[in-house]
């Protein structure tokens, strides 16, 4: 009698939703820009045509989607003929690039009327593109909404926690994704980078800064954001090295706090 269940067909217009509903929706992972932009290895776990894509996070996890909150600093139309909007979304560790075109009407409409700077929450799928021999990560938004600073801080705190948990588990882990990260990112894999990113994020929230003596935290935060921008374009660029010592101290402080 129930061949035509109304509810089971209701989402059939949205095939992606329908598909993921049946298989169980993929979790939205939390990661900072510094790590998201390094997660350049994107792969499928099965040969099926509609199998989901996963980005391999260097800290040994995979992400089919991200949930992130950051500041939109700039929106540009980078399309040739059709509108294709690129939003720069900044978190305490760097800049992510969110792209919205005709297939993301909600996000495109939102971005085209947004006046930066503004805090936004984004649910997005990762993908990559190549340019001049480099692989870059781009994010395709499923939803993007304006949020307040409290939501943003909550996300930063949550993402610190999730990132630290992955980093802490990495050394002794027998997870296949940790192994995959070692293999895939090999020589360029430097987890300290993400410890530094976490330290930057803690500093941004005003956590652990009172252990420091130079009193230039807020200035550094702004600087680091800019440096993060550069780092996404040039992974081996100088900015990270400049910030290294300071961030290492902050990371040590952060770790010490964790152990308490």
């Amino acid at each position, binding site marked *: 009698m129930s061949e035509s269940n109304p509810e089971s067909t209701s989402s059939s217009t949205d095939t992606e939703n329908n598909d993921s509903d049946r298989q169980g*929706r993929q979790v939205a992972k939390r990661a900072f820009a510094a790590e998201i932009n390094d997660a350049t290895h994107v792969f499928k776990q099965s040969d099926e045509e509609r199998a989901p894509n996963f980005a391999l996070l260097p800290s040994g996890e995979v992400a089919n989607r991200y949930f992130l909150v950051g500041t939109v600093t700039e929106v540009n139309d980078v399309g040739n003929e059709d509108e294709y909007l690129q939003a720069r979304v900044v978190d305490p560790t760097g800049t992510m690039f969110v792209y919205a075109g005709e297939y993301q009407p909600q996000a495109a409409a939102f971005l085209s009327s947004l006046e930066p700077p503004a805090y936004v929450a984004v649910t997005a799928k990762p993908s990559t593109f190549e340019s001049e021999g480099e692989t870059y990560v781009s994010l395709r938004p499923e939803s993007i909404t304006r949020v307040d600073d409290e939501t943003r801080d909550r996300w930063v705190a949550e993402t610190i926690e999730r990132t630290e948990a992955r980093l802490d588990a990495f050394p002794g882990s027998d997870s296949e994704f940790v192994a995959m990260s070692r293999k895939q990112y090999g020589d360029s894999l430097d987890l300290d980078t993400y410890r530094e990113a976490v330290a930057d994020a803690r500093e941004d929230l005003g956590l652990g800064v009172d252990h420091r003596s130079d009193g230039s935290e807020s200035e550094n935060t702004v600087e680091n954001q800019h440096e993060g921008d550069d780092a996404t374009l040039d992974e081996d660029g100088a900015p990270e090295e400049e910030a290294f010592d300071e961030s290492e101290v902050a990371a040590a402080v952060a770790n010490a706090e964790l152990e308490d």
Partner: protein
Amino acid sequence: MSSNATPAESTVTVSDADLSEAANGILEQFPDDLDGDLPSAEEVASRLDQMTNQYKVPLDEARRAAVSHYRDVFGLEYDDLEFPGQSAGDITLASVDQDEQWVDVTVKVVELWEPTHDSIDQVGLIGDESGRLKFTKWAKAELLTLEEGRVYKLSNVITSEYKGRYSINLNSRSNIEAVDGDIDVGADVEDVQLSAPMVAIQSGSGLIKRCPDEDCTRVLQNGRCSEHGDVEGEFDLRIKAVFDDGETVQYAIFDREATEAIGGITLEEAKEMAMDALDTSVVEDALIDALVGRYYSVEGPIVGRYLLVNEAEQLG
């Protein structure tokens, strides 16, 4: 409810014998004291013949359509039909996996909720050792009042399915019998509390229309109820939300009350908003803008894959 026609049979020619058996089966479901004459078995069979052999409709579907047609003709509710030998017998709640199956269950009333509609006498959660399910007892069934914490044998109750989650309906064909003793109710459904951002609002949220049939209340698709066809729908508000803490995904449903509370919009305001825009989807869009991306603490029972939101609060 059961069918002796397999899809394979029904896509090829349906024999006269099968048609006539199906026609008699349909007629048996209609009470004898109708206003007006029942069609003859031949008439019903010819109707089925047209649908199956001419229009290639499976016999099961043709039977369903015929029942629905004659129900309309005689102005009968689904409830008024008779189903001889209908109940699948004693089952456990966890084994419920079919829509519209007549069953008997022995359960404890775990929790009674506030009915949201006059047509509902009692609504809540029942449980046995195997699990818990939502139940709805319709007012016009005029059944014994259930008490929280007591054990009952509920016979001739009918299952219903909504987005993969099952519930139990008690209607006028059902029986309630109080039973001595206690049941250690399975712990698979508890009120849970979670803190997570809402990462999506699914389509079918906002201002929706439901079938006005009090036993149905299905959400209409393009003004149509899949059971009752074109109907004058009744407006309702709901949110089908996805919460995601980075480790697990939890689907949640905000009913009208919960939607009004969290969305800061009343049903009346939502209707005005849709009227101004000549489009109901503006309400869903407004809820997305207002709610998605923020962190919440939500609380409620988990039924099937949904958390039914009782309490929700945005985390600042």
